[in-house]
């Protein structure tokens, strides 16, 4: 009888154990699903990275070599209405001057990666009356002690004209761009205009009913998915593709150990991307216009709306907070148009100077890898200057 009871108890115990394991499996799966379930409904799978995955990238990067980093000011937009920069502060009713920053990242072996490539010369500068300080990126690199020939990679935070403009200056450099960035422009180029008068398709349309011009001076182009990509910019990307010097990326991509692309789809444009860089001050995160404003990241304000989905921009801000969580936090987010850049108010960029013969453009040394020599001059010129003279342009028929 006792043996029978023992046998029944053992069988029941085994059943309970198997059941328990089974349910543990289910729970584990739920846990995993919960992690991935953090993906908001409108985020593309290739654009999503959970907090855990980002933290794993931090751990991996911390075992990687240390990089050095600088920014240079490709140009400066002058007198931009504050509301166009940070809509939440439009009531300030004032204007700001916005730098257009390009990131320079140096490998341990001296090779350079650019994050964004600034404006291309020609017409943008020629008749753009509210800009200052444009200087060719090759000249800027040389003037701050870098060899432009060592630029081997260019990561495009997004492909707007003021960030992707000088690709042909670096014929040997490989360009990294998200496929999503290209697909969205292509899609909206075809978008019907019947009921929107071209305000969605943009690129110089005419109202089908009235025949009136859509675009300047109506400025319809400023908020549409296609606007911001002149044919000239797309041509430069095509040049890279045809010469085998383009990597069309879909989501996260590790370029090298300690140098990781993270998607930030619709953080500014459809295919925006961030760049995580392992440095002695922790992970730097370059963000182009997704991180248009550093104070915006610090204070959680949406910035530079354009095609931005505001929640996607906040999710991209969060990525910086996660990646830089071990050291310096939001202080390590590198913004493209932060007006306080090159001052002590944006501490990461406080070590700045005017680029010699740089048309008033500025540079800042963000961080040096151990053993590397500083590029900051012994007596840095820190007298803020403005020069709105357009550089020469020489297109002839």
């Amino acid at each position: 009888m006792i043996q029978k009871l023992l046998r029944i108890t053992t069988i029941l115990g085994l059943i309970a154990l198997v059941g328990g394991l089974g349910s543990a499996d289910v729970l584990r799966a739920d846990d995993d699903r919960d992690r991935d379930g953090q993906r908001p409904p409108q985020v593309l799978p290739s654009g999503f990275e959970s907090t855990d995955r980002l933290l794993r990238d931090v751990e991996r990067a911390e075992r990687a070599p240390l990089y050095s980093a600088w920014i240079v000011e490709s140009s400066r937009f002058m007198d931009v209405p504050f509301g166009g920069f940070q809509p939440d502060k439009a009531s300030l009713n004032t204007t700001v001057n916005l730098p257009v920053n390009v990131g320079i990242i140096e490998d341990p072996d001296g090779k350079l990666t650019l994050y964004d490539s600034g404006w291309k010369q020609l017409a943008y500068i020629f008749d753009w009356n509210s800009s200052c300080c444009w200087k060719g990126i090759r000249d800027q690199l040389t003037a701050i002690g870098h060899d432009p020939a060592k630029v081997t990679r260019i990561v495009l935070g997004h492909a707007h004209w003021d960030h992707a403009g000088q690709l042909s200056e670096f014929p040997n450099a490989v360009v990294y761009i998200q496929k999503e960035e290209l697909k969205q422009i292509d899609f909206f180029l075809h978008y019907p205009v019947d009921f929107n008068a071209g305000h969605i398709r943009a690129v110089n349309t005419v109202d089908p009913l009235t025949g009136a011009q859509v675009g300047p001076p109506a400025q319809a182009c400023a908020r549409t998915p296609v606007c911001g990509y002149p044919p000239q910019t797309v041509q430069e990307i095509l040049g890279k593709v045809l010469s085998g010097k383009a990597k069309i990326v879909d989501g996260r991509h590790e370029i090298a150990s300690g140098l990781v692309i993270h998607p930030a789809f619709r953080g500014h444009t459809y295919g925006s991307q961030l760049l995580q860089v392992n440095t002695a001050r922790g992970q730097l995160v370059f963000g182009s216009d997704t991180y248009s404003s550093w104070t915006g990241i610090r204070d959680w304000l949406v910035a530079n709306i354009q095609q931005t989905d505001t929640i996607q921009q906040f999710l991209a801000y969060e990525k910086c907070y996660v990646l830089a969580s071990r050291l310096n936090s939001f202080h390590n987010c590198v913004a493209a148009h932060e007006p306080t850049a090159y001052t002590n108010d944006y501490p990461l960029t406080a070590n700045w100077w005017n680029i010699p013969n740089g048309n008033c453009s500025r540079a800042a040394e963000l961080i040096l890898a151990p053993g590397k020599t500083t590029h900051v001059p012994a007596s840095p010129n820190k007298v803020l200057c403005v020069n709105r003279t357009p550089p020469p342009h020489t297109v002839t028929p």
Partner: protein
Amino acid sequence: MEVGRSTAETMLSRASVLLHLWMTRKMIALGLLVLGLVGVLALATSREISRAPTLAAVTPIARPTRPALSPVEEVFIQSLWPIHGEVQRSLMRTSLGQILYKTNDLSRADLKARMEQALVTYGRAETGIRALEPPTSLRNDREIYLDAVRLLRESVVEAMKMFKDGREDHLVTAYPKSQEASDKIREVGGKFWPNEFPPN
């Protein structure tokens, strides 16, 4: 009792002297502390002033402004606008078409269709621009634009050879012409429509 009183008075007197002495020392220490703080503050302020960028706006050169357009110039520029839009969209479609073809996101047939359409657009644009009568001041710009459209047409003709012999290096051969054309179009576009692509 008297003795006790006297002792008490003496003690009181001593305490008063000590208190006075202590107060004096305290005052001196307090004074030194305040002086020190003022010194630190002055040093910090002077350091901050020397470190902060000097906001000496050097703006000796006036902002360049485009001279006002004459009515004839306005009419020409307005008439070019729809043609400009068609040309730019067509160029974008062929450029992106080639990129997406290379990434296997667009079929060969679709790329061919885009290029055929571009040829039609460029032909129409050339005819349209020639029909416009520019004022003397803008004749050079019209020539630049016409040259750009010619380059685009030639570029597409070259690229389309790949559909005959299957050699994709025609795309590479065709590219410099379309790049040059896009530079020219941007140059004229920037002059005629300065706000066409506002800050992004």
